[in-house]
């Protein structure tokens, strides 16, 4: 599902171009606190990516009925946020529990993939959504539902966290190469590789016993 490594070429899929040139659910007017139930922001202008999200939630059905956004970033970032907004609000809206579990891979799948170098541009969307949902939990005093995204990021390029490595190992990746195939960790940032290998050993031991 991920496009072959395209290096410098911008082989964006039709879907990505569609969402970039005609973004869905954009917040056109000035955001007012009164209009939206919750809001979240992630990224920084210095990094080249900022996503800001505004949600409206139906408390009775626990579904997200509206997802408006604004993004500073490249075409991949803009298309990813737009696609995420569609995923979350289509078919009458997504249940919060399901929305909390959306991962970048899900957005990528719907977009038809992104060039390898661009994948990191799509990983902020779900984080922005969770930030907004956490804001909702705080406002409605549902403190037990707040999920702290404090997992340590190991690779700042791909934003791979310890949890991502754990998941890869659980899905059967047993070598560095196998883990890299899934997460792209360490490809642009080889300094993190010793830590990655340590984590692979740790999780393999934890879940599959000593070899």
């Amino acid at each position: 599902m991920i496009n072959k490594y395209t290096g410098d070429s911008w082989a964006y899929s039709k879907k990505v171009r569609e969402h970039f040139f005609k973004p869905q659910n954009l917040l056109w007017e000035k955001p007012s606190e009164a209009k939206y139930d919750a809001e979240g922001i992630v990224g920084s202008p210095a990094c080249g990516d900022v996503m800001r999200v505004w949600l409206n939630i139906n408390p009775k059905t626990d579904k997200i009925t509206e997802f408006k956004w604004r993004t500073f970033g490249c075409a991949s970032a803009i298309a990813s946020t737009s696609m995420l907004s569609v995923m979350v609000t289509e078919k009458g809206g997504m249940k919060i529990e399901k929305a909390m579990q959306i991962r970048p891979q899900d957005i990528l799948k719907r977009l038809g993939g992104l060039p390898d170098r661009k994948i990191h541009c799509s990983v902020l969307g779900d984080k922005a959504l969770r930030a907004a949902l956490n804001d909702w939990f705080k406002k409605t005093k549902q403190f037990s539902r707040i999920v702290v995204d404090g997992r340590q990021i190991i690779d700042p390029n791909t934003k791979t966290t310890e949890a991502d490595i754990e998941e890869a190992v659980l899905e059967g990746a047993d070598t560095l190469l196998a883990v890299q195939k899934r997460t792209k960790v360490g490809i642009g940032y080889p300094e993190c590789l010793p830590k990655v290998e340590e984590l692979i050993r740790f999780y393999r031991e934890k879940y599959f016993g000593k070899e």
Partner: protein
Amino acid sequence: MSKPRYFDYASTTPVDKRVISAMLPYFDDKFGNPSNLYEMGRVAGDTVKNATAKIANILHCRPDEFVFTGSATEADNLAVLGTARANRQSGNRIIVSQIEHKGILSACEQLKKEGFEVVELPVSHDGLVKISELKNLLTSQTILVSITSADSETGTLQPIAKIAKIIKNFRQKNNGALPYFHTDASQVATHVDLNVEKLGVDLMTLSAHKIYGPKGIAGLFVRRGVSIQPIIFGGSSGLRSGTENVPGIVGFAEALRLNQLGKKTESARIKKLRDALEHGIFKNIPKVVLNGHKTKRLPNFLNISILDVEGESMLLMLDELGIMVSTGSACNSQSLEPSAVLSALGNPYEFVHGSLRFSIGHGNTMTDVKYVLKHLPKVVEKLRAISPLELSLGQKKPMSSPQAFVGNQTPHFLRKKQPLKASGGRMTKK
């Protein structure tokens, strides 16, 4: 897609039709190898000799002072690695600017591994190297100084003749031939006088595909007396082994010759277009910053930062309209790092990500400029509506503290960068 309007001549240029016709006979008709003794070989050998003489004439140097390479990057590598290794006994310090091309900086990285010390001459906010600092950095251990004639992002013209003078004085005082002075003149060849006597350089890189010549051929001027080693080995007594790219050499020489004709008028024409583009953009689009020096700049360069918007997204929208430009945004680079040159100018990263580089050339007309001025504001307006940011112009220091980055981590491009100190010793990565 709309009619193509190319504004990226600093990246590469189309080959002039006259250059193509000059090259053609040497592909299948006169295809000889200059190393051969028979007639066809001798013809090829003479062709290379004549082409070299043509180039030497323009540079005001001797024909045996010009080496052909496959690219400007290779010429830069030869200049840096070749002189450093050949002069190791005399010293181990190399001085480069913060805004050199990757060819120079990467070769310096290699030299550090070989035990050399590389120090960076800092650059001011306006893009000019701090000449006053140079005197402090020159020591008896310095064997090479390499400063680009104009950086490839902002086109700011560096005071090469002044720097050459400082180095000459230093050499006289110390009664020596070192350090050598190299400059990468790839970007300036179209607009500046290439007389190496006037420039006062010992080594100079030139690139064919930046001056309407073919890709795959470039060259390095090496003053007689400069001690230098080859980096490509193959049995030749010269500095670069391998069968000569005869058609390429012919094309290179012809491109340089054509470049000299009407240089002043063409530069003036291009400057008019660039100024009209610049004026129009600043008039019609709010919150735009100029990168580099306003006046001491190549007449074909316009590098701007458009606040609140990211470069790659602008690029894609302009591409849809047929407009081709470059950006210094991290999202557009192979290494996911923002432009090193723009970052060195001291602008906040937020500005670097929203940068666009327009470089004008032979094919541009006022119609092209008007087309850009008509559509760029709309592109910016659309992307500003999509963006959550509202940055302000006066921001000198970074707006986002390192903690604002995702995951509370310093971004990779800040972590990798280590200020190169003049205190000596090899730099180690954290």
